[in-house]
């Protein structure tokens, strides 16, 4: 199998994925935006409609599927970070009792430790695992490099023929030299981020089952539609004969956006054995074989006037995503603040590890950690309040005030609300002004992220003769509460309760919807469901008007009864109205396009309060206030959860997370949840999630934007800036471990 068949480009960035999705539909027909108080559920708190299944253990994840006659597959992976596979001998493995099939997966050059070499299907996991030991592989081991710095040195082993450092991105506006000449102060700093592994709770997993020429795959995925298309391409079969199902999944964060190697392997083994085949990656495999956030080593240089006006920004960044090209990280630099002269240079550095994958807010988290830390330091240099400095460079147009106007921008409202709730005035006026063993500080950071959604997203709403209502949409719930937001939108639009709506999602046969990544789901799916429900509501009114012999405009719907506004004695129960339907009614909803004359972004600001123990170097985050502009919030309850999770992941990356590679062996040192540190119950601050509710009536029929990525973006930088405020020292490299904090303290000779 060829590499391009094996991997459905997991390295595509969310933004590109979003662009590659959807269709151009008719220009936006703006529908009147209802006021928030017109809704009973939209914008309010609705518990998850699938909550009961989750809390009783009835929610079925791919891990939980067991079929009659099902085999288990295991994958033999390269122990070498770089080697030529000379031969693979499957014979002994195939002879092993219980083994039903084995596949060779690789010929030629292996470029990372963990690359699939062969696979086995057997009656149970252990037999399959044991059979892997019987596969004889002859390797010619070659030199490797797994460190970003070493890969850039002269004479480093070549990971790519064209060189280990290649141009990734460039952008110029204005005149950067002129910008620096106009500046009163020129300042430069370098910031580094680490490799951060998704570590989803449910490891990657798939079950494949053939019936004749038709393939059904149950997959732990964020993208049933993309997995269908990827499988069809990899197996060279019609997409129409592939169905992908996902009922529940245990987290993705960008690592489950396409058809994976193991899924294709399961499908091939299932075809060969004519039995269902399940593959469940181990925690170890999940740690080093399915991607991570690429690291960034970024140098920012700014020119600024004494009054705080930015005149020039130069961003030079080296991104390392293993054998992949990594993320472009420059958008925060080009777009958050007003600046006429900007130069961006970004390079990919290639090393012998698996390709990085999209990781919640790819590019933006790295870019924001650098930019926002830099803004904090720059403000201190200018002796300006960091918030005032940001407001001084506030932009109302994209591309740093040089492009299209934002349709709406509530970042100023986020600043105001966040600053008030954290008590901004309490911060150290001079960074590091505190004394004693425990130093406290307050810092903040800003955020942008697209989150406009995908035009052309579809949803069908059906009304059956017994009155039951269902919505079908080929989206998926990755833990954000998609079923519930669909029920809320359909119910509120029709005048029903969320529990009256049967929501069917997670099946690639349903009407098309994009990947659940890049904050696309709500602003794509909710407007499509709203469109279908508006059509249904209209049709029901027409039917009622006919039945009651009144004008449709005279019909109102209350307590599941249609009646005349003018004469309430004229009424018909909903159930009686639909009982005589000759067939179920089906209404097709579609997410319309938005005007290209405006720019659309989500905005937000985080304010963090930390305490740092200057004896141990431990950072303790006490509180984070998060204010977000994501347009209309659909379900405030699940929206708040998104914010909590984004902040915890940002905190975790900022303080703990790092995929560590061993230079000698080229393998990951900490491929488990004990040595790969993530935030635990004891590290959690008080979090205050806030929304500024700026409804964007140009964007879609609900004025709603996405929320998955935004809260992940500024949290790390806000915490780093709070540490700066506490110590007067900026930790420019994450994770901010006690060792790094102590080393920085030592350099500054800060004494307790």
């Amino acid at each position, binding site marked *: 199998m060829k590499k391009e068949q094996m991997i459905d480009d997991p390295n595509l960035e969310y933004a590109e994925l979003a662009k590659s999705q959807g269709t151009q539909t008719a220009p936006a027909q703006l529908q009147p935006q209802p006021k928030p108080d017109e809704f009973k559920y939209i914008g309010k708190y609705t*518990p*998850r409609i699938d*909550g*009961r299944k*989750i*809390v*009783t*253990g*009835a*929610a079925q*994840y791919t*891990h*939980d599927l*067991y079929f009659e006659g099902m085999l288990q597959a295991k994958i033999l992976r390269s122990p070498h970070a770089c080697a030529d596979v000379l031969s693979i001998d499957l014979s002994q493995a195939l002879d092993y*009792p*219980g083994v039903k099939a084995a596949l060779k997966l690789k010929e030629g050059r292996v470029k990372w430790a963990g690359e699939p070499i062969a696979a086995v299907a057997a009656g*149970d*996991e*252990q*037999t399959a*695992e*044991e059979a892997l*030991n019987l596969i004889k592989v002859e390797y010619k081991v070659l030199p490797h490099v797994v460190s970003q710095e070493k890969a850039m040195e002269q004479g480093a082993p070549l990971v790519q023929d064209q060189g280990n450092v290649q141009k990734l991105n460039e952008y110029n506006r204005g005149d950067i030299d002129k910008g620096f000449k106009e500046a009163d102060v020129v300042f430069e700093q370098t910031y580094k981020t680490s490799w951060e592994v998704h*570590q*989803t*709770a*449910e*490891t990657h997993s798939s079950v494949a089952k053939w019936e004749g020429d038709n393939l059904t795959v149950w997959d732990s995925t964020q993208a049933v539609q993309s997995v269908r298309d990827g499988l069809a391409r990899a197996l060279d079969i019609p997409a129409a004969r592939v169905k992908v199902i996902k009922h*529940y*999944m*245990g*987290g993705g*964060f960008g690592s489950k956006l396409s058809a994976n190697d193991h899924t294709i392997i399961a499908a091939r083994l299932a075809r060969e054995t004519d039995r269902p085949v399940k593959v469940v990656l*181990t*925690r*170890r495999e999940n740690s080093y074989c399915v991607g991570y956030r690429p690291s960034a080593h970024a140098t920012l240089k700014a020119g600024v006037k004494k009054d705080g006006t930015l005149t020039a920004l130069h961003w030079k960044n080296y991104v390392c995503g293993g054998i992949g090209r990594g993320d472009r990280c420059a958008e925060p630099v080009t777009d958050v603040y007003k600046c006429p002269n900007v130069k961006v240079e970004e390079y990919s550095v290639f090393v012998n590890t698996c390709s990085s994958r999209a990781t919640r807010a790819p590019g933006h988290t790295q870019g924001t950690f650098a930019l926002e830390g830099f803004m904090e330091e720059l403000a201190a240099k200018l002796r300006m309040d960091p918030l005032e400095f940001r407001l001084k460079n506030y932009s109302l147009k994209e591309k740093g005030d040089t492009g299209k106007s934002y349709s709406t921008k509530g970042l100023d409202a986020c600043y105001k609300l966040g600053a008030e709730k954290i008590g901004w005035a309490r911060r150290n006026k001079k960074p590091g002004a505190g004394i004693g063993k425990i130093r406290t500080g307050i810092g903040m950071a800003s955020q942008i992220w697209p989150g406009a959604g995908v035009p052309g997203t579809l949803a069908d709403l059906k009304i059956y003769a017994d009155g039951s209502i269902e919505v079908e949409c080929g989206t998926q719930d*990755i*833990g*954000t*509460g998609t079923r519930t937001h669909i029920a809320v939108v359909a119910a509120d639009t029709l005048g029903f309760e969320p529990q009256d709506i049967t929501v069917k999602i997670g099946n690639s046969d349903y009407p098309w919807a994009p990947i659940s990544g890049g904050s696309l789901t709500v602003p794509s799916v909710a407007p499509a469901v709203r469109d279908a429900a508006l059509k249904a509501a209209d049709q029901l009114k027409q039917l009622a008007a006919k039945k009651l012999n009144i004008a449709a405009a005279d019909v109102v719907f209350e307590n599941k009864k249609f009646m005349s506004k003018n004469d309430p004695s004229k009424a018909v129960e909903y159930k009686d109205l639909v009982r005589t339907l000759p067939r179920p009614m089906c209404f097709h909803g579609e997410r319309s396009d938005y005007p290209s004359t405006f720019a659309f972004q989500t905005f937000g600001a985080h304010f963090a309060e930390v305490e740092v123990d200057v004896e141990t170097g431990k950072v303790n985050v006490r509180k984070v206030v998060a204010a977000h502009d994501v347009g209309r919030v659909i379900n405030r309850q*699940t929206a*708040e*959860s*998104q914010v*909590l*999770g984004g902040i*915890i*992941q940002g905190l*975790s990356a900022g303080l703990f997370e790092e995929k560590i590679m061993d230079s000698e062996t080229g393998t990951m040192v900490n491929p*488990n*949840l*004990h040595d790969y540190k*993530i*935030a*635990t*119950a*004891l590290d*959690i601050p*008080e*979090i205050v999630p806030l929304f500024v509710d700026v409804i964007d009536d140009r964007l879609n029929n609900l004025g709603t934007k996405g929320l998955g990525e935004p809260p992940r973006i500024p949290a790390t930088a806000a915490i780093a800036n709070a540490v700066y405020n506490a110590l007067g020292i900026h930790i420019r490299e994450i994770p901010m471990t006690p060792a790094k904090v102590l080393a920085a303290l030592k350099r500054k000779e800060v004494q307790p």
Partner: protein
Amino acid sequence: MEDFRGKKKKAVTRRAFLQSLGGGAVGMSVASRVLGQEPFSIQSAPAEMELYSKKRISLAVNGKTISLEVESGETLLQTLRDRLKLTGTKRTCSRGECGGCTVLLDGKPVYSCHLLAVQAEGKDILTIEGLAGKDKLHPVQQAFIDKDAYQCGFCTPGFIMASVGLLNKNKQPTFDDVRAGLAGNLCRCGNYQKIYEAVASAADTMRRG
């Protein structure tokens, strides 16, 4: 399973307090296995135990006594999921690091990946499937729904069982008690704050009866 080929280090628990509750301790290396028997991986076993012998045991799971044959080296997690198809108990790390497989053993939370099935004989095993009453959810389950104390839900059964275990022991936990009581469970989606709220709310409900 990844552990049984002896390629890994000692299995270690994340939290000392749960370490003390887990039965086995050492990841065993298995060189061969008896063919023709239904195989299972060995993750942890007391040293004196004979490997790969089969044993008929009876387990009291969710109020029902079940007689079944297990491998001596089979973990309780494997028995629950693979044999009894009680898949609400999740396999997340298989080595006592995350709490996703937490069940109650005589009312106390244990990592079922860290306990052999044979060690659970004679004890009351409660899994997420057996927690709710006939018509009513357990107060902790209801509170998780009301407070939205989950996202993907994969760690939720483990968190709920750990919370119930905590409340069995401590009817009026302080905020710090709740944090400490749940420190052996990982939620990657990061909904801890709402989990704390749910446990506090469930404790209130339970105290009121």
